[in-house]
């Protein structure tokens, strides 16, 4: 019925439309000269006007060309008649190319990507990029190479773990992110912007998603973690003349010994003399026989039964794929030969290079090339024996010792006795004053941990490979010596040997997050702690007065797994069963508390952590309930991101977690009210003044750039004794973000200035909570 009533009679009657009127619209809407049709045409005019004058954003100047180029690239790729016209680069990746070429290769790879003609891709530099020790109260500045589409960038930008931040654009190429709260100490953060959102005004985008990792400084006053504790200890083997322990990447424990080795009560055969007397590689040694020490030593894989891999060896190091073992064979002339033998397979060792040092250093670059030291320089050699000098700017000390970072970007050596970190990309170097002994690189290679001395105490300091100021992690009691540091594969702990007068040397571990430290065992005479690649096992030598040593493996708890992808921070992935158990005992909200407490050590997908209404969380603080207690109080904020229908909100939660048992136990949990986060511009400061003529001026300082369109009587009102004051003079200074409101000749009543929506910042975020400033009435007389 309704359709009939409204049905137009364009079929009934046709008239000639006025000039400029769409004849089809006229036909649809025109009915008769005096009725409904006139209103509809008027409405049509209004719609036309609105549609024409309404918002119709123009594309970025370069967008049209950028899209065309992208379409043509796609068209060429799928063209049936033409082959793809991709640029081809002939990269001579010879077998001799190793780490020396990596930096150059990475530069070349950037240019390999096919770009649309005339288009530059977006690149960004970040003030915190890769810095593992960013102060917790620091803003983050992103510097783009092109003017950006600001709303697109900010809309897509994410910081993980979640941080509530204010974004500012001092200019279209610079974005400053000011966190609303301090960052959490010793947490790895990642700023990410999806490729599609990182859009330049020209239409250009980055070649891939933007990912900016950084970490925050550890703060010893905030206990976020705890060192591992010993679960079990096993005697793996015993040896005389045990020189060193190491793990192959596949978890095989390797021992270099100059004397007999006994494994699980079984003595291994003795071997003596030069490498010619080396037992057959890969052949299990005869149980119960003695192994006499060669000038170097014999390298054993401590399997059951142990296998002698090579003799007359020094400095064994397994290849990344655990297929080969490199070691130095000392010669009678005081030099050494670099040899490589297969682990667990048949075959003679390969002699690859010689070094002038009696006990030189070697490190695998990849599965087929090594870096080694000789005659004060670094050389690279591949398994074909091709050698080239690399990194000529690196200087070595008298021993030829060096230590390359796991990421291959930095190298430590001590030329002329001066501990120095070299940046292998730039060639720059930074001395590390105070460093004693041999340092250890973090698994990612961004931090160097070392022993130093301060005020008569030995300390463990951490310094960034970039040369930032060192951070003190641990102070040993007076008289206790520290040495033999070793970063855990997950990066959460550093093992060390503490030598206490009258007690002996013991193995301990310090939690990198907090600096909290504990000895792992009461056993003394310990040395050479080495972490298993899987991170939950630490092996060490325990010497006895007789000169023999036990090889002990300690199973540890509270340790994260190693990071598999080599990200900035090691993080443990809780197993499904652990999660399920925690869900049952603690509930999903409490899981967030646990994760917040263990932030650097535990990574659980937020979807499993948070109640459905919340999108993210962050730990505001975490501290033991009392000194030395294993019960922690964690203050969290569960964050609900803004949606189209609701502003961002947060809920404060306080959780008490007892860590002493096998798994964390939530003993108390309290929640606050869901609070709406103010959004839009914030007033940072307000001042008022009254002139001699009686004019009152309010000066408001905002934290962000205001949209001038939204400034006016519609958003700024002044009342005097409850009555609106007219004729306000309102001005806004964009350069200073200062809003000035002046009212003249006011009576002396109480004044209330209110700033409210639609006042908005340039990102169109309206002020969500009205700002009010009250002035009391001026006393008469």
């Amino acid at each position: 019925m309704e359709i009939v009533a409204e049905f137009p009679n364009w079929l009934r009657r046709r008239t000639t439309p006025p000039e400029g009127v769409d004849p089809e619209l006229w036909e649809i809407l025109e009915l008769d000269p005096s009725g409904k049709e006139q209103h509809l045409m008027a409405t049509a005019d209004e719609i036309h006007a609105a549609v024409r004058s309404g918002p119709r954003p123009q594309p970025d100047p370069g967008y049209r060309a950028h899209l065309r180029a992208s379409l043509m690239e796609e068209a060429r790729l799928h063209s049936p008649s033409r082959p793809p016209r991709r640029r081809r680069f002939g990269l001579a990746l010879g077998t001799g190319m190793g780490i020396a070429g990596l930096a150059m290769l990475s530069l070349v790879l950037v240019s390999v990507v096919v770009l649309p003609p005339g288009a530059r891709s977006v690149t960004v530099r970040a003030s915190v990029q890769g810095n593992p020790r960013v102060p917790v109260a620091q803003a983050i500045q992103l510097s783009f190479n092109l003017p950006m589409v600001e709303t697109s960038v900010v809309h897509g930008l994410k910081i993980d773990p979640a941080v509530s931040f204010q974004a500012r654009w001092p200019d279209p190429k610079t974005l400053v992110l000011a966190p609303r709260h301090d960052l959490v100490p010793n947490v790895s953060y990642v700023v990410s912007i999806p490729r599609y959102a990182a859009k330049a005004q020209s239409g250009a985008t980055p070649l891939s998603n933007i990912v900016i990792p950084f970490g925050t400084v550890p703060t010893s006053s905030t206990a976020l973690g705890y060192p591992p504790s010993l679960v079990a200890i096993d005697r793996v083997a015993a040896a005389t003349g045990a020189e060193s322990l190491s793990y192959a990447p596949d978890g095989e424990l390797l021992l270099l010994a100059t004397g007999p080795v006994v494994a699980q009560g079984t003595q291994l055969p003795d071997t003596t003399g030069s490498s010619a007397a080396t037992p057959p590689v890969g052949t299990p040694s005869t149980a119960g026989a003695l192994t006499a020490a060669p000038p170097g030593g014999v390298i054993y894989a401590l399997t059951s039964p142990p296998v002698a891999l090579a003799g007359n060896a020094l400095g064994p190091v397994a290849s990344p794929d655990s297929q080969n073992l490199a070691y130095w064979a000392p010669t009678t002339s005081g030099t050494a030969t670099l040899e490589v033998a297969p682990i667990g397979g048949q075959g003679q060792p390969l002699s690859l290079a010689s070094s002038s040092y009696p006990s030189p250093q070697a490190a695998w670059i990849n599965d087929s090339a090594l870096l080694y030291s000789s005659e004060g320089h670094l050389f690279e050699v591949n398994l074909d024996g091709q050698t080239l000098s690399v990194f000529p700017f690196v200087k070595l000390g008298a021993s030829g010792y060096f230590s390359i970072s796991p990421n291959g970007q930095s190298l430590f050596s001590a030329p002329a006795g001066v501990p120095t970190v070299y940046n292998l990309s730039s060639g720059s170097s930074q001395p590390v004053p105070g460093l004693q002994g041999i340092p250890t690189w973090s698994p990612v290679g961004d931090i160097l941990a070392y022993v130093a001395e301060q005020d008569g105490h030995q300390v463990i300091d951490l310094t960034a490979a970039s040369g930032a100021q060192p951070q003190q992690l641990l102070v040993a009691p007076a008289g206790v010596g520290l040495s033999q540091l070793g970063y855990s594969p997950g990066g959460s702990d550093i093992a060390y040997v503490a030598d206490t007068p009258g007690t002996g040397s013991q193995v301990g571990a310090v939690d990198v997050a907090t600096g909290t430290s504990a000895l792992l065992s009461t056993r003394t005479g310990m040395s050479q702690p080495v972490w298993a690649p899987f991170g939950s096992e630490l092996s060490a030598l325990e010497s006895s007065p007789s000169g023999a040593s036990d090889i002990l493996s300690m199973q540890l708890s509270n340790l994260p797994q190693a990071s598999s992808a080599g990200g900035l921070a090691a993080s443990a992935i809780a197993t499904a069963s652990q999660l399920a158990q925690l869900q049952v005992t603690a509930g999903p909200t409490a899981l967030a508390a646990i994760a917040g407490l263990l932030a650097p050590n535990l990574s659980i997908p937020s979807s499993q952590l948070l109640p459905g209404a919340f999108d993210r969380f962050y730990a505001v603080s975490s501290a033991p309930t009392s000194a030395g207690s294993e019960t922690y109080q964690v203050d969290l904020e569960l964050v609900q991101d803004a949606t189209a229908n609701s502003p961002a909100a947060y809920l404060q939660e306080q959780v008490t977690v007892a860590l002493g048992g096998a798994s964390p136990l939530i003993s108390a949990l309290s929640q606050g009210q869901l609070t709406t986060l103010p959004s839009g511009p914030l007033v940072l400061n307000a001042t008022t003044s009254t002139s001699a003529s009686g004019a009152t001026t309010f000066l408001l300082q905002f934290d962000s750039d205001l949209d001038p369109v939204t400034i006016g009587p519609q958003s700024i009102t002044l009342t005097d004794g409850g009555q609106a004051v007219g004729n306000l003079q309102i001005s806004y200074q964009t350069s200073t973000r200062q809003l000035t409101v002046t009212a003249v000749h006011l009576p002396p009543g109480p004044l209330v200035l209110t700033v409210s929506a639609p006042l908005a910042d340039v990102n169109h975020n309206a002020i969500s909570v009205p700002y009010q400033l009250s002035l009391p009435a001026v006393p008469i007389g």
Partner: protein
Amino acid sequence: MSLPSDHEEALIARAKEDPEYFGELYDQYFPQIYRYVASRVRSQPLAEDITSEVFFKALRALPRYQHSGHPFSAWLYQIAVNAITDHYRSRRRAEDSLDEVPEPVDPTPAVEDEVARRMGVQAIWDLIDALPEQQRIAMGLKYGEDLKLAQIGVIMGKTEGAVKLLIFRGTASLRQRLLTSRADGTDGNRG
């Protein structure tokens, strides 16, 4: 706005053989497709994303395109309408409201006038957005793009008569809502 039919047909045939000729079609139709998309989503980044999607879809589907006598632009509009509809179905529409439009501000008019003008325009846009989807699409193509009813019919897969009815009912409905909002004093023009 369209190429002569025979030229367009020849160009499409060439583009089917060698997609690089698609560039000429793109050059011809980019402005109106972008304008249409931008008028519907009113967000520059989003308009760019959807416009890109439209042309990439068209490029990929070109081998299957059958020239039916209607302008090639009708087909592009059809893809655009679907892309916009998909967008609104998958996202909350209000995310892309006028408040978020990064529209350059003309510094000339007084601040209050500019606000009033924008609020008035927004009121009409809000009313258009509140119309049923089919009415909204038909009105957008007619009022915004000045397309012929026949083309709109092709784009929407409807008869010309059905399109007429959609536009009529949409216009009538919008008129009624405008009258109501003005009577309530909720139209920004009166504020």
